[in-house]
């Protein structure tokens, strides 16, 4: 038995205080950003490798130092202190600046990649080492993207350090991004094989089942290419339904997917910004399912066109595909999906646009053992669950009626259960029989939000 006398009673330092190590972290972050800036604009004067790659390295070290200090200082329950009071995380001026800068970066990346030459040169040695070929804007993007997930993965690990579920899940998204979406595709290029992302599937990676891609993989990749086509098809049509049946859509969206990986790590400070209103839900169903339909139609048209050798549909299907690529692939998933993190939350793309999420969601809603259970009549309607739901689900609506939460959009990140101050929610897989039944200890409304 412990007694009061044997325990330390050190007061926790106040949340706003800056200690020396935090300050050192901020200095390194600033130096790193300056280095990257110099690489971008001053490549003629200084080696962009030194300034850009060096700057990225210093930025990483500084960010880790700062994150380590600021997150360790707070106990698990203190992690969300002030989120709605600090302007960076409550759509204040700095949030808009970050939003504009991110959006602008995507615009340059997609439509003016030449402007990023300095930064592309900065990653040249890394590209040569990993892929045995020159760097390009996509390699630059992949490097930054992976680094963001790894560094902010540390942030998530510290923030949710009292939960094994979140520790394992965060390590999983870090692993899949680094291994399957960065190192492995690079290695394939090094070996002169087709660049292939084993963690992305049709309909998210819509072109993986387009006839052109299939042809190319089989032609260029030989046996490995055949395996890639086989892998993609099996995951899209067999593994996805089976895994979703057992675990819900979370096996992909918050454990494997790169978009989800970025959302769960770099996007975590913005998760409360998602819109919880009924109107937002109406928008969601009005956009995400048509996009899934669009991908399915495009794919079908391309195959019909391919089989008929272009006689049936002419160039129409190609136009269809490039339209999708521009509006959905580039505009939506990149510019709005990530650029608007600080303004609309970290899952805008996953919620309103991603065809894979739509497909997984239909499976989760109608063909899965997954649900979030509510613990009897314990809910106090506080709203932490709804507030911190990155998908904008009004979790409280169900919890306060003792009902399980079964929603197509739920990515199973588990943060609702984590922030609940009464331990009311639990993600679990159970028999489908009685899946929608709630607790008998509480009365409920018959009203449905979408009506």
């Amino acid at each position: 038995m412990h007694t009061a006398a044997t325990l330390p009673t050190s007061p926790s330092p106040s949340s706003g205080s800056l200690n020396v190590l935090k300050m050192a972290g901020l200095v390194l972050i600033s130096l790193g950003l300056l280095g990257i800036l110099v690489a971008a604009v001053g490549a003629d004067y200084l080696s962009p490798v030194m300034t850009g790659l060096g700057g990225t390295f210093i930025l990483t070290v500084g960010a880790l130092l700062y994150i380590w200090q600021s997150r360790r200082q707070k106990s698990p329950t203190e992690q969300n202190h002030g989120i709605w009071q600090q302007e960076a995380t409550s759509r204040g001026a700095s949030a808009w600046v970050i939003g504009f800068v991110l959006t602008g970066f995507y615009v340059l990346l997609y439509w003016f990649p030449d402007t990023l030459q300095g930064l592309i040169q900065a990653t040249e040695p890394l590209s040569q080492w990993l892929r045995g070929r020159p760097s390009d804007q996509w390699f630059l993007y992949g490097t930054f993207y992976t680094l963001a997930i790894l560094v902010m993965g540390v942030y998530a690990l510290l923030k949710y350090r009292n939960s094994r579920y979140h520790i394992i899940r965060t390590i999983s998204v870090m692993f899949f991004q680094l291994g399957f979406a960065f190192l492995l595709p690079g290695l394939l290029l090094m070996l002169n094989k087709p660049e292939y992302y084993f963690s992305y599937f049709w309909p998210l990676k819509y072109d993986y089942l387009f006839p052109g891609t299939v042809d190319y993989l089989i032609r260029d990749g030989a046996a490995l290419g055949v395996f890639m086509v086989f892998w993609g098809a099996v995951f899209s049509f067999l593994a996805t339904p089976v895994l979703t049946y057992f675990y819900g859509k979370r096996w992909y969206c918050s454990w494997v997917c790169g978009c989800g990986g970025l959302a769960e790590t770099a996007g975590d400070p913005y998760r409360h910004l998602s819109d919880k209103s009924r109107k937002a839900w109406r928008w969601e169903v009005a956009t995400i399912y048509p996009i899934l339909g669009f991908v399915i139609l495009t794919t079908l048209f391309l195959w019909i066109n391919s089989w008929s050798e272009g006689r049936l549909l002419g160039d129409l299907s190609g136009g269809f595909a490039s339209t999708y690529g521009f509006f959905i692939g580039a505009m939506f998933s990149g510019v709005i999906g990530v650029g608007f993190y600080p303004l609309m939350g970290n899952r805008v793309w996953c919620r309103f646009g991603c065809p894979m999420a739509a497909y997984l969601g239909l499976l989760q809603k109608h063909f899965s053992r997954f649900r979030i259970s509510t613990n009897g009549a314990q809910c106090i309607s506080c709203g932490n669950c709804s507030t911190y739901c990155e998908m904008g689900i009004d979790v409280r609506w169900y919890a306060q009626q003792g009902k399980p939460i079964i929603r197509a959009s739920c990515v199973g990140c588990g943060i609702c259960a984590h922030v609940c101050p009464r331990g009311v929610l639990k993600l679990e897989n159970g028999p489908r029989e009685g899946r929608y039944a709630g607790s008998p200890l509480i009365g409920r409304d018959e009203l449905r939000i979408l009506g």
Partner: protein
Amino acid sequence: MEKIKADEHLVIIGNGIAGVTLAQRVRQGSDCRITMVSAESRLHFSRTALMYVYMGHMRFQDIVPYADWYWQEQQIELVHDYVERVETGDKKLVMREGVPLHYDKLVLATGSSAAYYDWPGQTLKGVQGLVSLQDLELMEANTAGIAQAVIVGGGLIGVEMAEMLRSRGIAVTMLIRDKLYWHNVLPQEEAQLVTDHIRQHGIELLFQEELQEIVADDAGRVRAIRTRSGQELPCQFVGITTGVQPNVEFLKDAGIDIDRGVLVNEFFETNQPKVYALGDCAQFRNPAPGQPMLEQLWYTGRLQAEALASTLLGDRKPYERGPWFNSAKFFDIEYQTYGTVPAQLAEQHQSLYWQNEEATKAIRLLYDKETARLLGVNLLGIRYRHDLCHHWLQQGYTLHDVMQELPAVNFDPEFFQRYEEALLRQYYTRFPERQPPSKNNTWWELRRRFGLASDTASC
């Protein structure tokens, strides 16, 4: 009793959890006109979540469970006004701003506010309780830029206030009458564990201390407090968290019987016909043996409203609360309780008690020594399934029955370490003749077997 008619007007004063639940349940079974009056806030909000607004976890609009469209579609009228008095003869409410409101049936769900005990200086600037939205706004103003605070009372609101103040870096001292935090509710071990944890979060705890007086500065603001033992503690804020008292002053001349709260029977009927009271403001005339006269909890407010709604809808049922349950959170440590675990364990009480080495988690299963009947469960840092605990207590399970189903009761997240093993080891040491269960029942099997699920499947 007759069901409320479609042309009748049900007026509810108060839109806390009791008033709101009542309106919702009556609406489900009747087309009568329903009006909810509140001076505090036009929209119902979660009172228990006020602390999260202060700490910046949420905004006020985030602790509002039902948006405007909900009340419109449910045809529940909301009136944001203060009821000056109730005229039961004319069945009329006189309002501060709006026109008088006529009612056919009136439900008083006016809640409570902080209880003061005539301390010298208790009306000074910087001295306050925390119950209402206005209290929260006042606390924002009262704590702006201050360095030290004292909280009087070692209960649940007290520790919430301490957590709020710490989030702004304000030094907090709590005056606690007992020898340990919340020791009038928690047994020794649990109280010790929670006490240590609160201290680790930098809260200064003064035990066996009470407030003597509050000392003012020249501007009429609190400057310090003096304790019963004569200590003077400088502070710029004093939180009064020594319990709550029913909000009933405006009913003085209404001809409604009042003691501490509005006196009601087990149907929530007052002495006036067509007038009911429930929630924090109601007081039972004849509480069942061992039951309190006032139940001032979120959960009981909701349960009472469900019982009264049933009566108003024509199914006259006395209020039976069923096995007790409650929950709270002390900084990082969640607390759940099911059944009855008294603070002072008696001769006939025996328990299986386990806590981890870091003293952040604990489980107590309390049972009767003679009959082995389960009396209650206390949990710190561990979640159990309410539905199953309720079933155990309702069905009069013995400890031996409970042990057969123990692994199914855990509600912790996936991948969390499980501690049932430790509890079972203790159990088999104490009862070596008992055999381990022949098969491990999963929660899903038990849920089906005992029917621990609602029959409606709407979602």
